[in-house]
C-alpha cells in the first residue's frame, strides 16, 4: 500500500529572482519578489496564502517579518531553522499541514543579499564555545575535516573533488541564468588558493544574492492550476549534530536516513531517479550525498564522478542548473535544488533539459553536514 502522503500535494508555482548581485536590495526584498513571482506562476494571490514557511539568515523572527511585509493571513506557519536544508524541512511540514487541513495554500520562501552586503557568509548568532578557541574557518574547515577523512578512508583524491566543480561548470555553461560561466580546467581548480586543506577556493560554492519561493497545494487543486504540477512523492529529514566533532562518522551523513525515508514514502529507489539535485556547498558534499543517497557505493564517489557520470552527457544528470558551485549560492541554497527539479519535470530547461525527466530527487544540507533533507518529485505520470 502506498504511503498516504505520497502525491498528496504538489508544487504548483515557483519563483526565482535570478538577481545574483543586486545592491540596494535587502534579503526581504529578494524574498518578496520571489514570492510574487511564484504566486503569479500558478495564478494564485497573496490573499490565497494561509500557510507561511520561511527561514532567513539575518532574522531570528522570519515568519513575523515576512507575514507583515507580504500581508498574508497566517493560519499555519513553520520557521524551522536548520541552515540550508530548512526549506526542505518546510516542504515536509507543508505537505503534512496541507493534508490535515491546517492550511490550503503554502508559501515557502527565502531571500538573501549575501554578496552585495559584503560577500561573507551571514550566519545566525550561534556561538560554539568548544570550537571557537581553535579558530576553524566556519563552515569550511568542518567540510575539510570530512573531505580529509574520506580521502584517508577511501583514497578519494583532490582530482576527484575538482571533477565535481568541472561538472557543475559544464552544466552552468548550458544555463544562461548561471552566475559563473565560462571554461574551467582541473588545473585551475587544483591550483586555486588553499583555504583549509584539502579545500581550495574553487572547491567552495559561490557567494551570491538571490531569492526563491514555492507555492504548494493539495494535489486535487494542483491539477486545475496553469502549470504542470510537480507532485511531492516523498520527503525525508534527519539531524545528526551541530558541531562537526559530534558527527558520528565524517564519511557518512544523515542523508542516508533522510534518503531512506523519502524513498520509502515515494516507493522508488535510486535507479528510478531521472534527475538529481544535491546541495553542493563544497565539492565534497556532492560526493558524499551521491554515495549516501545510493547513486554509487560508499567510498566509490570519487571514481563515479571522475568517470564523467554527473557531467552533461553522463549517466546521471546532477545539479543541472550549475549548482551552488557555478549557478548561485545566496547563503542558504536549499530551495534552489527544488526550483531546478520542478523546472526539469516541467520540461522548461532549454539546452540543459534532461529528456523524459519524470522523477527528480532534490537533496539539501544545513549547518556542517548537520541537517539533511530529501524530496522526491514526480510528474502526473508517476502518481
Amino acid at each position: 500500500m502506498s504511503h498516504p502522503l505520497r502525491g498528496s500535494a504538489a508544487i504548483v508555482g515557483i519563483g526565482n529572482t535570478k538577481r545574483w548581485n543586486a545592491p540596494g536590495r535587502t534579503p526581504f526584498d529578494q524574498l518578496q519578489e520571489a514570492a510574487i513571482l511564484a504566486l503569479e506562476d500558478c495564478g494564485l494571490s497573496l490573499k490565497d496564502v494561509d500557510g507561511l514557511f520561511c527561514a532567513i539568515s539575518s532574522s531570528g523572527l522570519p515568519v513575523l517579518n515576512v507575514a507583515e511585509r507580504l500581508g498574508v493571513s497566517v493560519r499555519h506557519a513553520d520557521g524551522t531553522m536548520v541552515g540550508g536544508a530548512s526549506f526542505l524541512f518546510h516542504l515536509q511540514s507543508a505537505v503534512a499541514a496541507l493534508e490535515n487541513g491546517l492550511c490550503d495554500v503554502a508559501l515557502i520562501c527565502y531571500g538573501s543579499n549575501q554578496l552585495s552586503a559584503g560577500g561573507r557568509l551571514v550566519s545566525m548568532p550561534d556561538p560554539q564555545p568548544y570550537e571557537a578557541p581553535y579558530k576553524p574557518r566556519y563552515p569550511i574547515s568542518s567540510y575539510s575535516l570530512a573531505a580529509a577523512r574520506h580521502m584517508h578512508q577511501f583514497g578519494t583524491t583532490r582530482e576527484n573533488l575538482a571533477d565535481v566543480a568541472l561538472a557543475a561548470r559544464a552544466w552552468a555553461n548550458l544555463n544562461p541564468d548561471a552566475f559563473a560561466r565560462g571554461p574551467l580546467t582541473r588545473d585551475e581548480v587544483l591550483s586555486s588558493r588553499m583555504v583549509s586543506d584539502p579545500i581550495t577556493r574553487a572547491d567552495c560554492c559561490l557567494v551570491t544574492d538571490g531569492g526563491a519561493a514555492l507555492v504548494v497545494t493539495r494535489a486535487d487543486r494542483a491539477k486545475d492550476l496553469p502549470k504542470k504540477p510537480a507532485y511531492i512523492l516523498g520527503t525525508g529529514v534527519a539531524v545528526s549534530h551541530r558541531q562537526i566533532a559530534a558527527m558520528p562518522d565524517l564519511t557518512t551523513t544523515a542523508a542516508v536516513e533522510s534518503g531512506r525515508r523519502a524513498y520509502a514514502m515515494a516507493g522508488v529507489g535510486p535507479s528510478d531517479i531521472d534527475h538529481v539535485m544535491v546541495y553542493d556547498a563544497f565539492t565534497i558534499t556532492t560526493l558524499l550525498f551521491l554515495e549516501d543517497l545510493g547513486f554509487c557505493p560508499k567510498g566509490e564517489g570519487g571514481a563515479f564522478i571522475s568517470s564523467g557520470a554527473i557531467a552533461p552527457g553522463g549517466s546521471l544528470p546532477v545539479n543541472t542548473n550549475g549548482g551552488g558551485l557555478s549557478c548561485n549560492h545566496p547563503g542558504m541554497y536549499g530551495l534552489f535544488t527544488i526550483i531546478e527539479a520542478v523546472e526539469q519535470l516541467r520540461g522548461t530547461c532549454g539546452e540543459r533539459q534532461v529528456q523524459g525527466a519524470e522523477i527528480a530527487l532534490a537533496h539539501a544540507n544545513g549547518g556542517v553536514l548537520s541537517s539533511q533533507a530529501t524530496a522526491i518529485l514526480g510528474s502526473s505520470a508517476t502518481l
Partner: protein
Amino acid sequence: MSADPRFDGPGPDEVWRSALAEGRFILQHCRKCSACRFPPALVCAACGSPDLEWREASGQGTVYSTTTVREREGSYNVSLVDLAEGARMMSRVEGVDPATVRIGMKVAARIIQEPESMIVFVPTEGGAA
C-alpha cells in the same frame, strides 16, 4: 524550592570550564551505559540517561581528521581528536609543522593559556602514523 535536586549546582558547561581553569581536563561518563560524553551536557547522548559522573581524562587520543587553516598571518592546525575514553573533540595539534599532522597520529593533551585555558594536543613519542 521544588526543583529536582538531581540537577542542583552549576551546569555541566560551568563545571567543565571551572575545572579547566584549575588545570584539570575532565569528562562525563554515563553511569548507566558507561559512554563518554563531550562536549558536556545534561544527558548521555548514547542512551539518554541523565545520570552522568565526572572523571579525570587520560589525555590520550588519536587524530581522527585534520586540516591546515591557511590565513595570511600564517597556517595552523585544526584536528578532531578521538579521546581514549571514546568521545571526540575539536582541538589543535601543536609542536609539529601543521602540514605533518596525520590521521591516526597518537597525541596527548596539554592545557595552555591563550589567554583563557584551552586544551591542545602534542604528538606522543613514536606517535607518528
